[in-house]
């Protein structure tokens, strides 16, 4: 039952993407253009990592409203490390990622030590972080970044005839593969899902719930930071405004992909597909000369539809299993 539903989900989402692509190929001029597809491979990559950053926290039944704030801060921090400190690219990226994980870990520490709702803690932290970024940078961007770094996000990697893909999409897919392995093969992955399914039960069966919550928020911070580093290499400059509009896609990608809001079940590759759907729709509608405002309305409606399906699915699963909870270990859909 569960497996059949999951298969239906994934094929359902794929079918929706195929339908949209068919519509855009016919009606949107230049959708299958090499430039469009290359652009899509760059935006989908960043949105997917933003979605994964939210997905890991949704998996433990919490949320992270600071995904955008952390991404923006790490983008600017990376720019500062390269431009002002003069670190080589690899060193700047490593230091920035460690700092991103640290900030996420601080979120987790505040949540576990005080027992306050993750929504409020991350809302407050997001405001503190963004405020600090703007105070420290005086709203100025870092623009003198090393060529090796900015060309990475601008130059295609794979060129097969008309098909050009950005290296960023390969990074996103690699991250997704690692995440899927973490959930499928490691104890920590099972702990995260067990905590999300039922923290009390997880605690009783020996899962170190507080540690899991802290580590998951650190992981979320790390992924948000990765998304920030990726987008700076794409834009070619580290703008403090990065991350301001990440809230909606961060929830939309994993939820459209089939991640349960209630926690305990994640969809890693579903999140990739969710990001692909959102970005394809944005690009397609833009090419069809639909004003960007209506695109925002449309994405809101897609998210709404996705949560309604999510709900129907949860009810169906509950009925199929006669009220027995899903076993957390089997709840990963790859």
């Amino acid at each position, binding site marked *: 039952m569960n497996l059949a539903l999951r298969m239906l989900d994934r094929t359902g989402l794929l079918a929706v993407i195929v339908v949209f692509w068919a519509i855009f190929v016919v009606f949107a001029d230049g959708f299958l253009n090499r430039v469009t597809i290359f652009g899509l491979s760059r935006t989908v990559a960043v949105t997917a990592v933003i979605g994964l950053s939210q997905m890991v926290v949704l998996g433990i039944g919490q*949320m992270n409203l600071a995904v955008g704030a952390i991404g923006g801060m790490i983008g600017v921090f990376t720019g500062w490390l390269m431009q002002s400190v003069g670190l080589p690219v690899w060193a700047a990226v490593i230091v920035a990622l460690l700092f991103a994980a640290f900030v996420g870990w601080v979120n987790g520490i*505040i949540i576990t030590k*005080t*027992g*306050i*709702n993750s*929504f*409020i*803690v991350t*809302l*407050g*932290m*997001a*405001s*503190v*972080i*963004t*405020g*600090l970024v*703007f*105070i420290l940078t*005086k*709203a100025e961007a870092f623009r003198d970044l090393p060529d090796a770094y900015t060309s990475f996000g601008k130059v295609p990697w794979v060129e097969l005839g008309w098909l050009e893909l950005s290296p960023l999409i390969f990074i996103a897919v690699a991250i997704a593969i690692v995440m899927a392995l973490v959930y499928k093969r490691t104890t920590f992955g099972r702990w995260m899902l067990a905590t999300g399914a039922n923290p009390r039960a997880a605690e009783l069966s020996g899962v170190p719930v507080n540690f899991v919550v802290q580590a998951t928020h650190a992981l979320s911070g790390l992924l948000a930071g990765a998304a920030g580093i990726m987008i700076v290499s794409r834009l070619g400059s580290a703008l403090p405004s990065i991350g301001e509009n990440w*809230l*909606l896609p961060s*929830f939309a990608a994993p*939820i459209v992909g089939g991640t349960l*809001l209630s926690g305990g079940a994640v969809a890693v590759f579903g999140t990739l597909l969710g990001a692909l759907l959102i970005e394809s729709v944005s690009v397609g509608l833009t090419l069809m000369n639909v*004003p960007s*405002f*209506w*695109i*925002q*309305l*449309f*994405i*809101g*409606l897609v*998210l*709404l539809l996705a*949560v*309604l399906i*999510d*709900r129907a699915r949860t009810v169906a699963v509950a009925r199929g299993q006669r009220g027995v909870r899903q076993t957390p270990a089997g709840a990963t859909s790859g």
Partner: protein
Amino acid sequence: MSAVALHQASSSRLQSLANKEWAWLAGIILLMSAVLTILEPNFLTQFNFYVLLRGIAVTLIVAYAQLMVLVVGQLNLSVGATGGMVAICTGGMMEVWGLPTVIAVALGLLIGVGAGLANGLLTTRTGINGFIITLATASAFTGVTIGLNDAKPWYNLPKRFVEFGQGRIGPFPYIAIVTIIVGILLWVLFERTLLGRQILAVGGNQRAAELSGIPVDRILVIVFVLSAILSSIAGIILMARLGSAQPSIGSDWLLPSFAIPIVAGIALSGGSAPVINTALAALLIALIDNGLVLTKADPYWIQFLLGLIILVAVGLNRLRAVREAKRTTAS
């Protein structure tokens, strides 16, 4: 869960707690006013008081819009989006259709009711967390706000309407009249009416409320509609104050809408509605903002401080709840 049980076990204790909150807020406000009076000669001027009250008149209603749903343990991310959409629609009806102020405002409020019904019905019918529903509807509402006039404001609003929005008697802006009426009505709602008691009961313990015969789903829909009406009122009076219907109205309301009720000491689990303390908290936050402006500090400090205030306020509330719980078990 334990917080809910605690709330029910000792509502009189909570009462005294709320009183203490009141004294704390008033004390900090007095202290801040004294400091600002000494440091900034411009603080104690009639015009500065007008600026202060003009800001509070809007943000307090925004805070009440969020308070309304926090009372039942829900969140509303579409407060700003609803306010913006209603402002643009009302302004459009005034400029394009030339409708008289009263009719345009009434229709605008009706649009707000529609937005609230959408949030409420989607949340109750599907059982999905209000957070996600309102995140999605907020995006849709913002799409309408910006799409309706291609992100351009409406400038030709009725003269009397704008005069009301910008006029004042001494330091007292006309629009504050609306805010005071809203505050009194909310106080009456929660302190004196059956509906208010039912809303508090649903917030305190939904299951218990259901078992005692309260129509929980209907109450939740009403709460979302009231929240949307309050958002709409805030949007309309801000439009009157600005003298134009800007599509950016509401885009920066998210943070203050949560910060003010939290500083007022609201229980995030639901079940408390500190109407008066929320007004004091709005004044406190406006004073901080005012102080930053008067001392010509970097405007980004307000965002940093609001976030810090949220964290400190919830931390203190939490600490006190834990202490209370210990004291109750000890005695």
